[in-house]
C-alpha cells in the first residue's frame, strides 16, 4: 500500500506534467495559426503560387490558294538527367538493362547513327553523371511521340532521367520558297524578324494571357480556377502569293542563276488588274565549302526586290512616257544614233552593241534600246528645264516608296536639279536608267500601270486576315494613281513594248511565241563599290507583261551577274527567266481562262481508246475485232487505235514529270493516273477523255489543276 501510494502521486504528477506540455503545444499551435497565420499564409502564396504567362499561338501565313507558308509547330529538346534517382538506384541496373534495346530503338528512329554509337554516347553520359546532358535538339512531334514508347524512356522522367523541353518554332513548309517575303521569326521572338512575319507581327503574335498557378508535387504546376486571362491567339494571314507561280518563278530564276553563276537576282510577278504580288523570288549567292572546295549555293538571303539599284534600260520606258506625254516627240520622230556613240559635256554615251545605225525613229531607238537615242532625245527635250522630267517621275511615284505592305522597302534615289548631286550629265544618263536608283518592285509597279492602261495599282501582299477560319479583314486592291498619262501615250508605250518583242532586243527570244508579249530588256553596267564600273559587272533585267493584248500578269526579272560574265545582255539572262515564267503561267492560267471547247464531230470508224492491255484484248476478243499484238507484256497501258477495220496497239508512255496524253482514256483510268501524279482533276462531261487543259508533254507541278473534258 505504502509503495503503491508513493508511486501513484509520482504518476499523477507526471500526468499533470504531460497535460501541461499538451497545453503548451496546443497554445503554440493556436499562436502560429491565429497570431502568425497571416504571415505564414502569405509566405505560402509567395512560395507556391506564381503568375505565369500563357503564350498565344502565333498565326499561320497562308498562300492565296490556302497553302501554309509559315506556321508554328512544337519541337522538343531532349536532356538526360544521368543522376536521376530512379536511373542510378541499385548501381544503375535499370540503365544497364535497357541500354541495348534503347540504343537500337534510337538508331532506328533517327537513322543517323549506329546503335553502337548511341550506346557509347549514353554510357559516356552515364559515367559523367551530368544532370542536364543535352542528348538531342529539335526533335519533332512525331519523333517525340515515338520516343515516349521506347524502353527506359517510357518509365517516365524520374526513372529514365529523360527530360523533354518543349518549344514552338516557326516552320516554312516550302523551305526556300519566298523565304524573304514571308519572313523569318527566329527563335520565337528573339532576334530580328523580317518580311511579312515582321510587317504583320502584331496581328500574328496575338496577346499572351496570364494565369495563376500553384506548384504541386513533381515540379508540376496546376492553374488555380478563377484567375485566368485567356491568351488571344494570333490571327492567320492570307497572302496574295500563289504557291504555283512562286514555284515557277523561283525555279526559273534559280536555273538561270546557277547556269550563269550570277551574284543575286529577283523575280516579281504581279497580277495586272489588282497589283497583287503573286510571286516574289529573291536569290543570292552564298559561298560554302563542299568536299574541301569553295563553291556556292543560292538561297533567299535578302529581299532584292525592294532594294534600289541602277535600273538601266528598263527605265527608258519612263523617259519615253515623259517625252510622249509632253509631246516633245512622237514615235516617228527621227533621232541620229551616230552609230552608237555620242559625246556630250566631255563624256561619251555608248550603246551596248555596236550597231552602226544612224537615223532611226524614236520607236526604233527604244526597241533597239539605244542609250544614245534616249539620251539625245531627253537632252533635246529637257535640258532647258530638267525639272519637268523629274516632275513626271514624281507623278508616277518613281521617287517614292510603292507602299507595299512589307517592312524593309528602301527609298529610291532620284536626284533633283539644283542639288549637289546634279550635274550637266545627270539628265542624259538618267534617260537610259543611270544616275538614279529604283527598286525592281518600282519598275514592276510602273510597267504594271502601263499594262493596266495607265491605272497604277499599289502592289500588296496581304489578302485577308483570318481569325479561326473567318475572314475578319479582307484587303481590296488599291489604286495608287488613276491615270499615269494620257490614253494616247499609253497606246504608244504599248506599241513600243510590243515592238521590243517583235523586232527589238527581245525579238529573238519571243520568235514564234503563241501569245503576244510586251516588255523591255535592260543591261546595266553597275558600279562595284570602289572598283567603279571597271569590273564589268552587268545587271540584266527584263520587265514586261503578257498576253500583250489582254495583260494578266506583269513580271520583272533582275539578275546581277558575276564580273565579266559570258552572257550579260538582258535578253540573254533575264529574258529567258521571264519567258519561262510567262509560258508556264500562260498555259496554266491565261489560256485556261479563255479556253473554248472545240466541237468534235463524232466518227465511229476512227477511234482511240486507252486501257490495260489485258482488258482491251478481252474486249477485242469478245466482239471479234482483229488485232495485232507487238509484244508479250500484259500489264501495261495501251491505246487501241482503229482506222476503218484495222486495230493496232501501241504502248502509252507515262512519265512522272511531264503530262501524259489522256486522250481516249476512260474516266477512272485518267483520274487514277493524274491523281497519282499529284494533279487536281476537274471533270466536264461524260465518256472518254477528249481534251485536257494541260497539253501532253508539258511539265507539271504538284497540286496543279487539270481540267479533263469527256465527250
Amino acid at each position, binding site marked *: 500500500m505504502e*509503495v503503491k501510494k508513493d*508511486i501513484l502521486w509520482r504518476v499523477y504528477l507526471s500526468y499533470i506534467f504531460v497535460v501541461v506540455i499538451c497545453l503548451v*503545444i*496546443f497554445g*503554440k*499551435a493556436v499562436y502560429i495559426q491565429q497570431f*502568425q497565420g497571416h504571415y505564414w499564409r502569405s509566405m*505560402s502564396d509567395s512560395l507556391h503560387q506564381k503568375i505565369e504567362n500563357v503564350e498565344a499561338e502565333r498565326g499561320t501565313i497562308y498562300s492565296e490558294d490556302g497553302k501554309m507558308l509559315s506556321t508554328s509547330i512544337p519541337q522538343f529538346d531532349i536532356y538526360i538527367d544521368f543522376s536521376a534517382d530512379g536511373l542510378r538506384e541499385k548501381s544503375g541496373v535499370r540503365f544497364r538493362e535497357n541500354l541495348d534495346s534503347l540504343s537500337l530503338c534510337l538508331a532506328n528512329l533517327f537513322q543517323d547513327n549506329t546503335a553502337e554509337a548511341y550506346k557509347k554516347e549514353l554510357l559516356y553520359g552515364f559515367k559523367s553523371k551530368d544532370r542536364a546532358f543535352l542528348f538531342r535538339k529539335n526533335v519533332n512531334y512525331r519523333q517525340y511521340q515515338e520516343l515516349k514508347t521506347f524502353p527506359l524512356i517510357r518509365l517516365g522522367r524520374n526513372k529514365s532521367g529523360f527530360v523533354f523541353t518543349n518549344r514552338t518554332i516557326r516552320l516554312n513548309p516550302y523551305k526556300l520558297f519566298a523565304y524573304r517575303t514571308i519572313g523569318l521569326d527566329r527563335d520565337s521572338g528573339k532576334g530580328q524578324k523580317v518580311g511579312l512575319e515582321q510587317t504583320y507581327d502584331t496581328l500574328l503574335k496575338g496577346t499572351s494571357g496570364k494565369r495563376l498557378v500553384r506548384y504541386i*508535387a*513533381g515540379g508540376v504546376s496546376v492553374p488555380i480556377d478563377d484567375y485566368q486571362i485567356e491568351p488571344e491567339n494570333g490571327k492567320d494571314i492570307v497572302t496574295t502569293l500563289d504557291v504555283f507561280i512562286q514555284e515557277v518563278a523561283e525555279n526559273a530564276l534559280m536555273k538561270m542563276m546557277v547556269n550563269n553563276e550570277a551574284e543575286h537576282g529577283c523575280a516579281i510577278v504581279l497580277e495586272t488588274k489588282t497589283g497583287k504580288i503573286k510571286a516574289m523570288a529573291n536569290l543570292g549567292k552564298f559561298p560554302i565549302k563542299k568536299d574541301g572546295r569553295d563553291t556556292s549555293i543560292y538561297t533567299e538571303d535578302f529581299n532584292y526586290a525592294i532594294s534600289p539599284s541602277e535600273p538601266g534600260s528598263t527605265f527608258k520606258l519612263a523617259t519615253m512616257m515623259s517625252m510622249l506625254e509632253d509631246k516633245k516627240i512622237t514615235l516617228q520622230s527621227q533621232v541620229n544614233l551616230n552609230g552608237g556613240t555620242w559625246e556630250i559635256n566631255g563624256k561619251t554615251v555608248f550603246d551596248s552593241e555596236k550597231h552602226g545605225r544612224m537615223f532611226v525613229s524614236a520607236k526604233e531607238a527604244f526597241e533597239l534600246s539605244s542609250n544614245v537615242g534616249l539620251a539625245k532625245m531627253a537632252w533635246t527635250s529637257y535640258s532647258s528645264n530638267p525639272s519637268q522630267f523629274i516632275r513626271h517621275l514624281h507623278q508616277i511615284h518613281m521617287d517614292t516608296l510603292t507602299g507595299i505592305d512589307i517592312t524593309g522597302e528602301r527609298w529610291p534615289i532620284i536626284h533633283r536639279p539644283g542639288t549637289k548631286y546634279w550635274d550637266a550629265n545627270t539628265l542624259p544618263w538618267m534617260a537610259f536608267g543611270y544616275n538614279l536608283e529604283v527598286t525592281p518592285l518600282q519598275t514592276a509597279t510602273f510597267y504594271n500601270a502601263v499594262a493596266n492602261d495607265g491605272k497604277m495599282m499599289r502592289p500588296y501582299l496581304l489578302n485577308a486576315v483570318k481569325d479561326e477560319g473567318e475572314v475578319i479583314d479582307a484587303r481590296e486592291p488599291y489604286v495608287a494613281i488613276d491615270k499615269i498619262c494620257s490614253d494616247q501615250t499609253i497606246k504608244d508605250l504599248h506599241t513600243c513594248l510590243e515592238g521590243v518583242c517583235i523586232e527589238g532586243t527581245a525579238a529573238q527570244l519571243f520568235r514564234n511565241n503563241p501569245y503576244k508579249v510586251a516588255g523591255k530588256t535592260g543591261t546595266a553596267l553597275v558600279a562595284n563599290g570602289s572598283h567603279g564600273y571597271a569590273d564589268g559587272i552587268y545587271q540584266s533585267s527584263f520587265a514586261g507583261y503578257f498576253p500583250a493584248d489582254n495583260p494578266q500578269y506583269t513580271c520583272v526579272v533582275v539578275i546581277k551577274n558575276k564580273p565579266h560574265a559570258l552572257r550579260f545582255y538582258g535578253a540573254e539572262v533575264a529574258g529567258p527567266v521571264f519567258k519561262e515564267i510567262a509560258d508556264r503561267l500562260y498555259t496554266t492560267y491565261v489560256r485556261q481562262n479563255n479556253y473554248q471547247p472545240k466541237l468534235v464531230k463524232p466518227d465511229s470508224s476512227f477511234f482511240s481508246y486507252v486501257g490495260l492491255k489485258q482488258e482491251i484484248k478481252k474486249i477485242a476478243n469478245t466482239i471479234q475485232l482483229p488485232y495485232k499484238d507487238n509484244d508479250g507484256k500484259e500489264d501495261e497501258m495501251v491505246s487501241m487505235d482503229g482506222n476503218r477495220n484495222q486495230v493496232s496497239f501501241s504502248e502509252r508512255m507515262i512519265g512522272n514529270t511531264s503530262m501524259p496524253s489522256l486522250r481516249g482514256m476512260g474516266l477512272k483510268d485518267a483520274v487514277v493516273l493524274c491523281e497519282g501524279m499529284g494533279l487536281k482533276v476537274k471533270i466536264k462531261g461524260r465518256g472518254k477523255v477528249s481534251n485536257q487543259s494541260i497539253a501532253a508533254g508539258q511539265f507539271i507541278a504538284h497540286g496543279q489543276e487539270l481540267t479533263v473534258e469527256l465527250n
Partner: protein
Amino acid sequence: MTDTLFSQMPTIQGMRSQLALRTRGDKFIWAIVVLLALISVMVVYSATGSLAYKMNKGNTEIYLFKQLAFMLIGLFIIYFLHRVNYSIYSKVAWILFLTAIPFLIYTLFFGAKINEGSRWIRLPIINMTVQTSDYARLALFMYISRVLSRKQEVIKNFKEGFLPIIIPVAVVCVLIAPANLSTALLTGATSLLLMFIGRVSFKHILLAIGVAAIPIGLLISVAVLTHKNKPDTELVGENVKEEKSKGLMVRAGTWIKRVQDFIYAKNEDVPYQVQQSKIAIANGGILVGLGPGNSRQRNFLPHCYSDFIYAIIIEEYGLLGGAFIMIVYLIFLFRGIRIFRKCPYAFGAFLALGLSFTLAIQALANMAVSVNIVPVTGVTLPLVSMGGSSFLFTCMSIGIILSVARNVEITEGKVEPESVLMDSPTTKEGETAVATA
C-alpha cells in the same frame, strides 16, 4: 457421414462473440487503437500524394493499401500479444534487451542511410527497413519495468537500485545517439521519468541528468560559438565540408546545425521543414480546417506522412482536430494509469505504466516538433504516422499493455479465466506483489 450439418455449425453470432469473448483488455484502449487507425488511414492517404508522385507516378492507392495492410498486421500483433500472459514478457525483456545491443552496434556501422543518419537495417526476405532504435527502446522499457518491479526494496540504493537501471539506459542512449540524437535524448528522458515514477532516488536522477548535461551542454556551446564566429553564409559551406568527412563528425555537424537552426532561426530563415509545417498549421482554421484530403502543404512538407503528420492533421481538420488527437492520447495515458492502479502485480503495473508513458511522450514529441517547440527530430506519431517498423513496435507496446489489462480483468473476476495459451494469473518466479487489496 463426413459432411457437416448446418445446424451443427456455430452460429454467425456465435463466431462473432467468440472473437469478442477472446478480445479482452481495456475497452477504451481498444477503441482508441481503432479510432487512431481510422484517422491514420485518412490522413496518410491524403499526405502521401507527393510521395506517390515521386515513387509511383501518382498512384496514391499503393500507399492506401500499404497502410491498410499495416493496420491489419498491427491489429493482429496487438491481438496476439494481448492473449499472451504478460509475465512471459519479464523473461522476454531480458532477452530482447541483450539482442538489441548488437543490433544497435551493427546499425551504427553498417546500417542503411536514410535521411543522413544510419538508423536503419534492412531485414532480409521481407525487405523492410527497421529502425533498430525502436526495437531497442521497447526492449529497454520492458527491461526497466522488470528491474523496477524487482528492486523496489533496494531502489534507493545507488549500487543495487540505481546502477542496474541507469547502465542499460546509458548504453542504449549512447549507441543510438550518433545516428539519432533526438531519439536518444527522448529515450533518456522517458527512462528518467520512469525511474522517477519507480521511486528511484531523486538525487540519483539529478546526478544522471547532470552527467548527461555535460555532452549536451558542450554541443549547445559549440553551436553557439561556431554560430557567432561565422556568418550564416559560411555555415552552409561548412556543412558541405563536414558531410564529406566520415564518421561521427558528420553527425556532429548535423546536430550543431539543427541546434543553431532552432536557437537562431528568425522567421525568414527557419529551416524549410519548420517553415512548411507552420504554413500547414496556419492553413487550418480553428474548427474545420481545409477538410479531409485537401491539404496543400503535403506537397511541400517533407515527411508529412510521418514526422510532420500532426501539422497535416491541423491543416485538414483544424485546431479542433489537433486538440482531439491530443485528448485521445491523454485518455490513452489515463487508461494506462488506470491499469497500473488496478494491477496487483508489480511487473505488470510497471510494464503498463512505462509503455503508456513512452507512447504518450512519443506523441508529445512528435506534436512538439510540428509546432516547433523542439528542434526537428525523426519521431513518429504513434499509430497515426504511416506504417513502418515504428508502427509495428507501437502495436507491440499496445499489445503488451492490453495483455496486462486482460490479466487485471481476470484477477478482478470480471471474466472467467480461459485456458488459452499460457494463461495463468498466478505469480511466477519471484514476481513481487506490490500490494494486496
